[in-house]
């Protein structure tokens, strides 16, 4: 709740203190985004170390032991400390603004979510200093390997994920309650921005999926600490059980990480194509459909554990079905571009880049869902290529589009367009150079999670190309950092609505005041600002 300035005690008004005690959704959102960005740098450095080790055959830049720790921490960091929380950050900043509310439903709970996230993240990062180093059994931490793993790293990994899970659950409840109860007058469910539809679905999925993770982690901790045998076979446990529990959470998690980004793309494309979204209801329904089916596909991560073919077939078909609503979204975005007036501002470049690479990630997903082919591709670099096309090419490119799009609303100044375009092109090219060859490495027979390989032929060439691409991406992010530094003081002022956008957040000032809106217009469609502009034009014409 926006607290009026005069009621705030003096000690809380300082430049730093005011951020520490804040319960303002906008500040919490920015804290989330900034914290995730710092973790992104950490995860990115780990990725560059991994790529450096793999640049050549028989390289010994990193030992096998350190390598296992690095990819475990890279994956965990990127999933739990970057993509999920940065989405929570955007949702925090945007949900009340987009639905015309003053704040989130539970502002203090919101602050608690953020601080739990920060401390959960610190537990994970500090586990680098644990006895025997951090966790080293992969971000999936399959037992028995994770049960046998030495030292405290694996336990801290479990502790960290437990904390992050609580953080995300509280956040999810907050988003759902806020969206259900605090929408502006006139904003029925079918007049909500598509991003809000996506956040609502994201919240529900988190609520459904996270308890499975918590349960699995608790059993894993018990196996490690008090010698229960849930997942180790020597006293009747079952190692595959953990995989079911983990992926029952893990696959919805994939959509938790992509649905809000779909929502961003559905906001950005209409604004820069100067058209309404094509098929609003189809896109909203596809979001819900993807979420539903995402609960039914988990064992497509487990086609090699020896399930009966009846089960393999079920999970193949459910995975194929989920491709349909995903395809519907892509086609609706394309139809939105059709006959538009397309502006190539940086947010739009990222959105278009998103469509082009996400399509590739979706298509490789069709291959992987065919379980007979998956028997070849499972646990190879083909899978690594696939999920980076979805998670980096999808989530991160989309998020960067969102960052360039909403940055002026957050800080009142636009990011530099020229530097933004450099970031986009370097990233887009670097991304494809890094990850496309991984499809080929996988089909050549390179398993994932190996710290070295001996083939000095084609496989080494592909690896070298991939490493060069990863450095290009590093440069792209340095340019983004420079862009932020440069425009903080000298960036072009944004005004309320620099993009002539459609949704309510552009109705208020940039940055918005603590209470967000002096008044909220009655919402008559999913594009309230467009409606206002049209009324204004009609009035002027008269």
């Amino acid at each position, binding site marked *: 709740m926006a607290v009026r300035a005069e009621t705030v005690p003096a000690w809380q008004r300082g430049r730093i203190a005011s951020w520490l005690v804040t319960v303002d959704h906008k500040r919490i959102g920015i804290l989330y985004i900034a914290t995730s960005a710092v973790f992104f740098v950490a995860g990115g450095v780990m990725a560059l170390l991994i790529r450096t080790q793999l640049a050549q055959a028989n390289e010994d830049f990193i030992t096998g032991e350190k390598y*296992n720790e690095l990819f475990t921490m890279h994956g965990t960091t990127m999933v739990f400390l970057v993509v999920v929380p940065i989405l929570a950050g955007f949702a925090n900043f945007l949900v009340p603004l987009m639905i015309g509310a003053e704040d989130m439903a539970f502002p203090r709970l919101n602050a608690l979510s953020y601080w739990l996230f920060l401390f959960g993240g610190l537990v994970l990062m500090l586990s680098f200093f644990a006895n025997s180093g951090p966790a080293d059994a992969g971000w999936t931490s399959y037992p028995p390997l994770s049960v046998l793993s030495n030292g405290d790293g694996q336990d801290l990994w479990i502790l960290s994920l437990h904390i992050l899970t609580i953080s995300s659950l509280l956040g999810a409840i907050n988003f759902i309650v806020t969206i259900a109860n605090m929408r502006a007058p006139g904003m029925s469910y079918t007049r909500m921005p598509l991003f809000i539809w996506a956040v609502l679905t994201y919240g529900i999925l988190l609520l459904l999926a996270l308890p499975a993770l918590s349960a699995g982690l608790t059993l894993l901790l018990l196996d490690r600490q008090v010698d229960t045998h849930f997942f180790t076979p020597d006293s009747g446990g079952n190692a595959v059980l953990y995989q079911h529990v983990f992926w029952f959470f893990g696959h919805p998690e994939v959509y938790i990480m992509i649905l809000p980004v779909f929502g961003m793309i559905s906001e950005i494309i209409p604004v820069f194509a100067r058209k309404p979204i094509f098929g609003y209801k189809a896109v909203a329904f596809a979001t819900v459909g993807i979420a539903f089916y995402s609960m039914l596909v988990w064992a497509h991560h487990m086609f090699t554990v020896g399930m009966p073919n009846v089960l393999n077939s079920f999970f193949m078909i459910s995975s194929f079905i989920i491709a349909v609503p995903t395809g519907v979204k892509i086609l609706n975005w394309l*139809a939105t571009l059709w006959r538009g007036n397309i502006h190539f501002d940086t947010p739009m470049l990222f959105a278009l880049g998103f469509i082009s690479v996400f399509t590739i990630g979706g298509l490789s997903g069709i291959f992987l869902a065919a379980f007979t082919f998956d028997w070849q591709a499972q646990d190879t670099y083909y899978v690594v290529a696939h999920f980076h096309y979805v998670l980096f090419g999808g989530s991160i490119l989309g998020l960067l589009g969102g960052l360039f799009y909403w940055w002026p609303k957050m800080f009142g100044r636009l990011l530099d367009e020229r530097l933004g375009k450099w970031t986009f092109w370097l990233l887009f090219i670097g991304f494809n150079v890094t990850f496309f060859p991984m499809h080929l490495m*996988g089909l050549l027979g390179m398993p994932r999670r190996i710290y070295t390989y001996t083939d000095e032929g084609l496989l080494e060439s592909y690896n070298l190309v991939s490493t060069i691409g990863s450095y290009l991406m590093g440069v792209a992010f340095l340019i983004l950092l420079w862009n932020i530094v440069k425009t903080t003081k000298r960036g072009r002022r944004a005004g309320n609505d620099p993009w*002539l956008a459609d949704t309510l957040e552009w109705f208020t000032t940039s940055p918005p005041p603590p209470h967000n809106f002096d008044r909220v217009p009655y919402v008559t469609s999913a594009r309230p600002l467009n409606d206002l502009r049209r009324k204004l034009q009609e009035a002027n014409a008269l």
Partner: protein
Amino acid sequence: MTALVRTKPFVTGALAALALALAPAALGGNGGFAPPDPASPNAEGINTTYLYIAVFTGVIFVLVEGALLWFVFKYRRHRRARGDDGPQIHGNTRLEVAWTVVPVLIVAAIAAFVFYELPGISDVPPATAAGGREDVKVVGNQFYWLFEYPSGAVAVDRMRVPAGKNVKLEVTAPDWDVIHSWWIPRLGGKIDAIPGIRNTTWFRADKPGVYDGQCAELCGVNHALMTAQVEALPQAEYDAWLDARLAGEGLGEETFGGVCAKCHGLQGEGGIGPPLAGNALLNDPEAVAEVVRNGRGEMPPVGKDWGDEQMRALTDYLREEVVSGGQG
């Protein structure tokens, strides 16, 4: 307009660079654009499935990316103002239905083909099938593969099989070990070796030769070194090898190379494990067997369920070849 001028050479350049980078690979064999050249009927079935799916996804790829590029080019801003809105089209129900139904038909066609090819890939040929069948038990251990033949012969990391004969594999891992995954790309897909679970798979290497693979499920620090070979031999040579192995020939060296050397070095010079060369303990077969069967410190119990012959073969090899640094 300005944006377009900048965009076009970038796109063209990127595509040209990609094409140049991929051309030599495409010309020299499949280069990773399809699974490796199959050498077994089940691998063949997987490749056929891959190519079938690639036709559909290839067409979708071209259509979607083509439409994207075409729209981006055709409906670019040009000289229009930002406030200049495009036609306010909100959707089209018939189109929505069409592009829901067509993808459903496409995935149905793909699923149907997967099922069509499935028996040829998945069904283990019966022992009574023409040419008979060889059964081998595959046990994944940190960080080596143990192969057990029905005759009692064992091998480490290098499986010998008769060429042209169906081979059924029973794949598992010991209760105290972790999950591994058996995978020889040219001989078919992978199957996990899971403690407490017995999985089956099969292959038939029609041509004699050596087929390489490696463990495909993270199994610990030396996961990357856990390689496997299948050597398909003409029947007569295979029979000869089996007889020799039953007499213990080559078993000590193979065991040392596969089991010990990955941590202790090929000459016992040490690696992530301590050096063995010059360690007097190696002269005492019972002390060695004790460590190998029970593990010690970071070392897993690599030989917990070995037969006496294999243990003796290893201790003999250690005493004769390793303790003296190969001088003895």
